[in-house]
């Protein structure tokens, strides 16, 4: 059975390989779809979509607040915090809010009930529409350490529209924010570039995807006539290559002007439509394989 609303995570080990190029253009050729920008430290998909009717929601996390009148100075909270978000200064806890992971452990462990939790805004989620594409963007406030709460909110199931394919523009790298972005995905599309440095990072994200047991495929970006290390890597690891995007000045120009190539030029529409078809074939195949297991 074909999955009607597959969630496709677009990944790459490093920045600048073309995650946004690929995910924005795939969402555009998919017609009715969802584009979710989980690269909350530097979201840029909205620069292409220029969404309209944007609604904004603040995202908060819980942080401890110490009531010094109740605090007996036992230090249990500071010793408990694995993130070193609580220092113990002059016999009182001192909270570094930006290091807090909102686990709530300090409030639980405090024998004096001296710790309450309060909400602190760390960023926002913007939702708008661009043609048939529903565009969700996560924005982490400058200086904040973790975008995870924003990514969680972006990917909450009830925020997703049943029946529409979802394209998740993931953060670069292979750290926590990437794991959070891909863990609910049905398929991982890795964007590779033809450099050794690119392959090093591609390998890291490939290992991560394998760790999560997700089906994957690669799209090779910026392809040149010469030998492509990313392609060799895919062949060696037996990763399906679902498409190739040639190094192309016009594509580069459109992209750097913040325009969506697939909406501007028929030849790019065709390119991304055929990539989408390949991706959907893989997703359908994988879904069927999962059902059989």
């Amino acid at each position, binding site marked *: 059975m074909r999955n009607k609303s597959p969630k496709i995570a677009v990944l790459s080990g490093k920045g600048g390989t073309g995650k946004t190029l690929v995910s924005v253009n795939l969402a555009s050729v998919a017609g009715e779809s969802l584009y979710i920008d989980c690269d909350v430290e530097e979201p840029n998909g909205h620069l292409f979509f220029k969404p309209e009717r944007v609604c904004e929601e603040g995202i908060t996390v819980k942080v401890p607040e110490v009531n010094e009148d109740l605090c007996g100075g036992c230090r249990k909270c*500071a010793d408990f915090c694995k*993130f*070193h*978000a609580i*220092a*113990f*200064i*002059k016999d009182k806890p*001192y909270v*570094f809010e*930006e*290091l807090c992971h909102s686990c709530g452990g300090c409030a639980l462990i405090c024998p004096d009930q001296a710790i309450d939790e309060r909400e602190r805004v760390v960023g926002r989620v913007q939702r708008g529409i661009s043609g048939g594409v529903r565009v969700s963007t996560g924005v982490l406030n400058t200086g904040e*350490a973790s975008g995870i709460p924003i990514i969680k909110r972006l990917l909450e199931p009830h925020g997703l529209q049943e029946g529409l394919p979802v394209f998740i523009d993931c953060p670069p790298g292979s750290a926590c924010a990437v794991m959070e972005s891909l863990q609910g995905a049905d398929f991982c599309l890795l964007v590779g570039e033809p450099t050794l440095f690119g392959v090093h990072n591609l390998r890291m994200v490939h290992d991560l995807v394998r760790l999560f047991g997700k089906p994957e495929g690669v799209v090779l970006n910026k392809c040149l006539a010469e030998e492509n290390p990313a392609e060799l890597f895919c062949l060696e690891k037996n990763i399906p290559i679902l498409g190739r995007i040639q190094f192309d000045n016009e594509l580069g120009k459109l992209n750097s002007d913040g325009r969506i190539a697939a909406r501007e030029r028929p030849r790019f529409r065709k390119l991304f439509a055929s990539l989408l078809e390949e991706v959907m074939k893989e997703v359908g195949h994988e879904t069927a394989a999962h059902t059989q297991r």
Partner: protein
Amino acid sequence: MKIAIPVDDKSLNSAVSQSFGRAPYFFFYDTETEESDFLDNGAVASQGGAGIKAAQAIVDNGAKALLAPRCGGNAEEVLRRSEVVIYQSLPGTIKENLDAFAAQRLVLLSDFHPGLHGHEK
């Protein structure tokens, strides 16, 4: 007064560590009793908040001065609020820095970098 220095090795000839929060050891020296001691830095492998944890160790061991080449903003906050004075260390060994401190040749550290949050950029 007790002085703390982040160091690379457990030897008086050790260099001062380039990192405060992720130095392998801390060296403590008491100017009155002339006693000294090395302490393993438990923060060295921390995912995040190493500076805070390291600063806490300095405070908990009763040091009133820290000699370091650089220091993060969070660590500085813990130290300042705990009334620990931070001096800029000189390139060289522990011994050379203790001598410079005794001769009042060290200046206060005034430039604090932002927290690295476990990402050693």
